[in-house]
């Protein structure tokens, strides 16, 4: 649903204020404790952040893609770990259900996902299947009364908090590649499902990824998402939608870093003047600003087109590729502008520098985005 301008601006102003007043002051603490405090999670639930992409009929906000991106710009203005807490509910953890779920599946899970009562997670990556998502080895073999899941998933975001997993597993071992894979909704409390310890990561402390293991987990046919063999399609469409959201988060983080650079460069004095008066600093700031603006324009253009019904597979990949690489450069320049202070943890700049590195890897690496873009270009040429 498209919000009227007044509601939209009030909505975005509320998120901005929440980010500024509640989340930003906690960034260092969240990184140190490797946890987002429970009261903050409760506030995020109360604000409705877990349900921004869930249809209104199921208790969510049903935002358009453009509105979701505008929301992500604001949320990007603080440590990405905060967004990660509800990021799976907004994106990969819920959208398979929204796009392919039966009415009964939607009615059972979506209201809880929208309120944040149910945290979701998306289990595709395996030790030997990541970018090559068709290589999934986890099996789901029909034994006459249920699918029996066996195998392991790796680096699964929010696995340790999730109540419900969207799992990609091979239902037909005879079909290699994506065609043999189906998607399943698997509750955390299923017998035989276990979660590994959270991995120690380079950045985004407070957000967690873990192994998820399936040891003969029995899943009824009513838990299958889409038809048998449609798993790859589910995964691709879910990831397709998530790319614009991630791109928008990258853009938000970049804008935050630029804001920090402007403030610091205006205050920090060397050779008797603020470093902002030096052209080499100015050039770095100008490049960051230009690139962040370009990313914002790309994202909003692709989002509006998607809302208008266009296929934006290529544009979303362009936006994700550019925005995630852009924020890496912006973070690198921020460290440079801050100098020694950029390398010291107290200023938080080095934390962002580490945090943003994952954006070039998850939900499709930069390399995969380029493949998608080129593939879509060639489709156009052949048509």
């Amino acid at each position, binding site marked *: 649903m498209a919000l009227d301008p*007044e*509601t939209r601006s*009030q909505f975005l*102003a509320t998120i901005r204020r929440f980010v500024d007043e509640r989340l930003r002051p906690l960034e260092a603490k969240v990184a140190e404790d490797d946890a987002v405090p429970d009261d903050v999670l409760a506030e995020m639930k*109360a604000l*409705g952040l877990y349900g921004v992409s869930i249809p209104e009929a199921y208790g969510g*906000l049903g935002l358009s893609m453009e509105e979701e991106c505008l929301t992500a710009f604001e949320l990007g203005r603080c440590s990405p770990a905060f967004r990660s807490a509800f990021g799976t509910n907004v994106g990969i953890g819920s959208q398979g259900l929204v796009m392919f779920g039966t009415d009964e599946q939607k009615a059972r899970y979506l209201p809880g996902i929208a309120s944040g009562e149910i945290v979701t997670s998306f289990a595709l990556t395996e030790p030997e299947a990541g970018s090559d998502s068709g290589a999934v080895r986890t099996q789901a073999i029909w034994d006459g009364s249920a699918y029996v899941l066996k195998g392991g998933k790796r680096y699964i975001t929010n696995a340790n908090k999730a109540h419900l997993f969207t799992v990609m597993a091979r239902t037909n071992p005879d079909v290699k590649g994506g065609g043999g894979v189906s998607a399943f909704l698997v509750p955390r409390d299923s017998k035989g499902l276990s979660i590994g310890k959270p991995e120690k990561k380079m950045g985004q402390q407070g957000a967690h990824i873990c192994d998820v293991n399936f040891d003969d987990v029995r899943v009824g046919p009513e838990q299958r998402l889409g038809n048998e063999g449609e798993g790859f399609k589910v995964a691709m469409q879910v990831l397709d939608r998530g790319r614009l959201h991630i791109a928008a988060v990258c853009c938000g983080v970049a804008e935050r870093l630029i804001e920090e650079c402007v403030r610091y460069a205006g205050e920090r004095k060397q050779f008797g003047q603020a470093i902002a008066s030096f052209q080499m600093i100015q050039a770095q700031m100008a490049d960051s600003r230009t690139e962040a603006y370009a990313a914002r324009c790309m994202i909003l253009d692709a989002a509006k087109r998607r809302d208008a019904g266009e296929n934006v597979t290529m544009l979303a990949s362009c936006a994700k590729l550019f925005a995630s690489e852009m924020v890496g450069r912006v973070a690198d320049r921020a460290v440079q502008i801050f100098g020694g202070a950029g390398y010291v943890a107290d200023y938080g700049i080095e934390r962002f520098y580490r945090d943003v590195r994952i954006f070039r890897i998850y939900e499709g690496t930069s390399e995969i985005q380029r493949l998608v873009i080129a593939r879509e270009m060639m489709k156009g040429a052949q048509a």
Partner: protein
Amino acid sequence: MKVLVPVKRVLDYNLKVKVKADQTGVDLTNLKMSMNPFCEIAVEEAIRHKEGQPNVAGSHYKAGTVTEIVAVSIGPDQAQETIRTALAMGADRGILVKVDHEVEPLAVAKILKAVVDAEQPQVVILGKQAIDDDSNQTGQMLAALLGWPQGTFASKVEFAGSKVNVTREVDGGLQTVALDLPAIITTDLRLNEPRYASLPNIMKAKKKPIDVKTPGDFGVNVAPRLKVVKVTEPPKRQGGVKVKTVQELVDKLKNEAGVL
């Protein structure tokens, strides 16, 4: 009981103000406007007495004490946004009294009196002052016009039957006064911490009704009675000086600063 909460649209509290070059006032062009923070506290207080605090053991906020919250704002069309914020937080309906120029506290109090006469609330909860003009007069004037008791600078509000106990922040401590209802309460900073309007409620607020009135509807003359002579920025802070000894410090405090 029904509660009336007046809310004022003011310059956002995060912004730094600039005085107009001709010194007639503050330049508001293209600046973000928000609900006055003390008014937010007033809205929050009314909502807490309506919803209670089920998750807080022993809370003095009891659900159902307040049954209806009416937010009223006096200002231009855009003041509807401020009312919407109150509605998104949890107020039930709004009244905009449309005026395109600044309205002085006495005129505001007269309009509010007329709204009270029409709405018949048991309590009016107002911010103690607005952060733009810092008048701190409206609540008191309204109490006088209505002949109602008032509890100003409230840091705690407890309803007890036909009375309300208001704890006030006064010099040197806290004073609790018991007021007979109906009454006027003005809020101080520490009364509560206002909530963020939830995103679903912001969307729902759009469907809550706002009546639009004019001062003429209430027969109130809002023509200014005061004349602003001059608005200036506060003097720039001067750099400090270092003193070498306690003796020198005492000497300066006595003879230069004149504070001892």
